[in-house]
């Protein structure tokens, strides 16, 4: 087992590994993908154990004999996603920190803090480009952003939504923001964009609930012709679930209202930026070749068979500056099939089923929050 070279010293081994996420995706069958992933993940476990004493303590305490040489993916040790909220974990000296990603996630006021160096940030960009490339092709398409320009220009630290928009903007050109600061759609702006670019493929990006609000709730059916558009959206379904909008409803209503047929949701998180799970034509999410999903029983933490719902574990070869290569999320999901012969993509096709419901906290500690001013 070769230990992963530090990003600063790029050996042959590192370059070889980086090819994993620079090449076209969804090409590897399990028999090839699993051993390759396992090698990289084991090397990352060893790297993080050596570089982060906190990580080493956690893994040593939580996993019997499961260190660097896991015999299969299921045995690769994993951290709970919540640990990134309570602890800033890093496998690099402070002097190498390029940026710290901060996100509040969906539930808490406490943000996750993800430490990146230049090398890991680059890996994330290259990886995301190779995933989006499968959808958008090699050219930068004209891009319609379903958000307000203020989201990336506001003073103060960049929000998670702003970071998402900025990240996606690198995959398009001639960007046009089509909401105002009140998140109202600017009909004239969007019409000008379509007059110029609507005759050929173009990219549309927005957060799921904003896309719905802007394109369905604020515009009459048939007002826009987006049939040449490719809509990429993310951000979770919590808001839309409250309005009984499922993925299927979302796709159908958008197609009816705007002619959009190429609609791709993706699942990703700040704890593994770059390693996103993009929706295929069949509506399922697929891991890129350098990442994977596993489903565990939330109570026993054991792997469940495909087709059984459980809590999602994500693994990715990207995280090098922080020990986030194997994370147990708090999202529920189910693997529908793996390497299905009828699917256009190799790998596991899965669905995200929302967050694990938070039980009511009990006890003296859960007090009434009667506030005195």
């Amino acid at each position, binding site marked *: 087992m070769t230990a992963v070279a530090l990003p600063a010293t790029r050996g042959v081994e590192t370059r070889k590994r980086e090819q994993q996420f620079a090449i076209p995706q969804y090409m590897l069958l399990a028999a090839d993908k699993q051993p390759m992933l396992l090698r990289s993940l084991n090397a990352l476990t060893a790297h993080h154990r050596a570089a982060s004493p906190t990580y080493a303590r956690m893994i040593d305490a939580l996993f019997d004999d499961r260190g660097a040489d896991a015999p299969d993916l299921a045995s690769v040790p994993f951290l*709970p996603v919540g640990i990134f909220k309570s602890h800033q974990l890093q496998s690099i000296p402070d002097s190498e920190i390029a940026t710290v990603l901060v996100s509040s996630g969906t539930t808490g006021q406490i943000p996750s803090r993800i430490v990146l160096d230049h090398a890991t940030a680059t890996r994330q960009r290259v990886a995301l480009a190779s995933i989006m490339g499968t959808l958008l092709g090699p050219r930068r398409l004209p891009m319609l952003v379903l958000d307000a320009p203020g989201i990336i220009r506001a003073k103060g630290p960049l929000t998670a939504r702003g970071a998402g928009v900025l990240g996606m903007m690198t995959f398009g050109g001639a960007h046009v923001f089509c909401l105002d600061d009140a998140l109202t759609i600017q009909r004239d702006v969007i019409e000008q964009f379509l007059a110029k670019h609507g005759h050929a493929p173009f990219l549309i990006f927005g957060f799921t609930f904003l896309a719905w609000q802007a394109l369905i709730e604020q515009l009459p059916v048939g007002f826009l012709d987006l049939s040449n558009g490719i809509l990429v959206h993310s951000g979770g379904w919590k808001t839309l679930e409250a309005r009984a909008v499922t993925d299927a409803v979302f796709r159908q209503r958008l197609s009816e209202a705007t002619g959009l047929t190429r609609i791709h949701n993706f699942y990703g998180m700040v704890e593994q930026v770059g390693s996103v799970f993009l929706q295929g034509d069949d509506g399922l999410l697929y891991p890129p070749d350098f990442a994977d999903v596993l489903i565990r029983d939330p109570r026993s933490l054991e792997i469940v068979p495909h087709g059984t719902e459980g809590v999602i574990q994500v693994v990715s070869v990207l995280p090098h500056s922080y020990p986030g290569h194997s994370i147990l999320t708090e999202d529920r999901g189910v693997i529908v099939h793996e390497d299905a012969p009828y699917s256009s993509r190799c790998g596991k096709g899965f669905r995200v089923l929302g967050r*694990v419901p938070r039980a*009511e906290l009990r006890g*003296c*500690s859960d*007090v009434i929050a*009667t506030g*005195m001013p």
Partner: protein
Amino acid sequence: MLAATRPRSVEAAAPACTDLATSVSAQFSLAPLLQPFDARTLAFTTDLSRALASDRELRGHGAAQALAYWLRPTETRRLQQYVRAIEGDNAVLVPRGTVFHVPPSNVDTLFVYSWALALLVGNRNVVRLSTTLSGLGAYIAFLTESVLARPVHADVAAGTAFVRYGHEAEPTRALSALCDVRVLWGGDAAVSRLRAAPLAPHAIELVFPDRYSFAALHVGAVDALTAEERDVLADRFAADAFVFDQQACASPRLVLWVGNAASMHRVSADFWTRVASATARRGVTIDASGALRKFTVSAACAADECVEHITRVSPEVTVVRLGSLDGLQRVAPGSGLFHEVCLTSLEELAPHLRRRDQTLTVFGFSRDALVATVRHLNGRGVDRVVPVGQALAFDHVWDGYDLLQQFTRRVAVRAEDV
């Protein structure tokens, strides 16, 4: 399942909260004064005990049955004798007047204990119930109010007000101004916030903030038990831990193995396996979010404490083995996360104790040894030492207060010497 029926009660709308205090005062001004252990009060507690014990919905709810048991005439008589005994020859204990209770929203039965003790010694009571009260707590409130509504209990009902309001500060302020005793249960932050509401100059206050509790098991004594006896011990421990999902203040969160470190591992492994079996027999299951919270918190413990190993004995029982108590974070995610450590003697605990440490459940120690330990600790934490299995048994002495004494005034009476 328990229906979360909404009983009739005083509802507070935000702008009407001074009206709430006004209507409570108006109600209480018409209420007859009850003597300590008044026949009318005892008739009510007896009826409430029967209602709780015989209710079909509450069958199998240990917490509700314990409450029913505690309210039986035998128990209230015992309290009456106790109050007479502490009265002595030179004093008479009289009610303080109006007690305002703010119980925690989710130890389902606690509001009844707090209220009943104040009621028994003759006080009028305002009990704040959370608007989000649900499940067992809501059902017990419903049942209590329906017993209270019986015409025979009109005099007790006249001096009792259950009020429901949410996060508003104003009702708390208004009710604080009119009470003679305020009783606050809850998390540290909420207790501090609530305490900002001024009391009348003569009023007193009892506070029950966040607490942490643990068990001390003597390694040799546990080792000497038969397999059946070890199952009984494990079952009692499981009852202490799981009745309120390990979220009551007195639920054990840390086990101190006192004695021989060499045999501790074997004895402890056997013990936790039996605790896991006991939880299964008791039908305890931790849900997905509880299990994940436990995994997250145990990872944080591994990062921050002197953790040797973390064992998931079952989905219900996770054990964090510590090399030492240094850096103990006193985490309390509930759902069956336990810490354990080996000590050569109970005295070793002293430097690690904090004021927030409340209940020490014990097995295998003599009374003399326990008294000596408490004297040795000399006020550094620990409010009660009780046998394993009795952590949640509510007593009128709680968190260092004798509630019966706090809810009464001692009027000194000396006749002239003849």
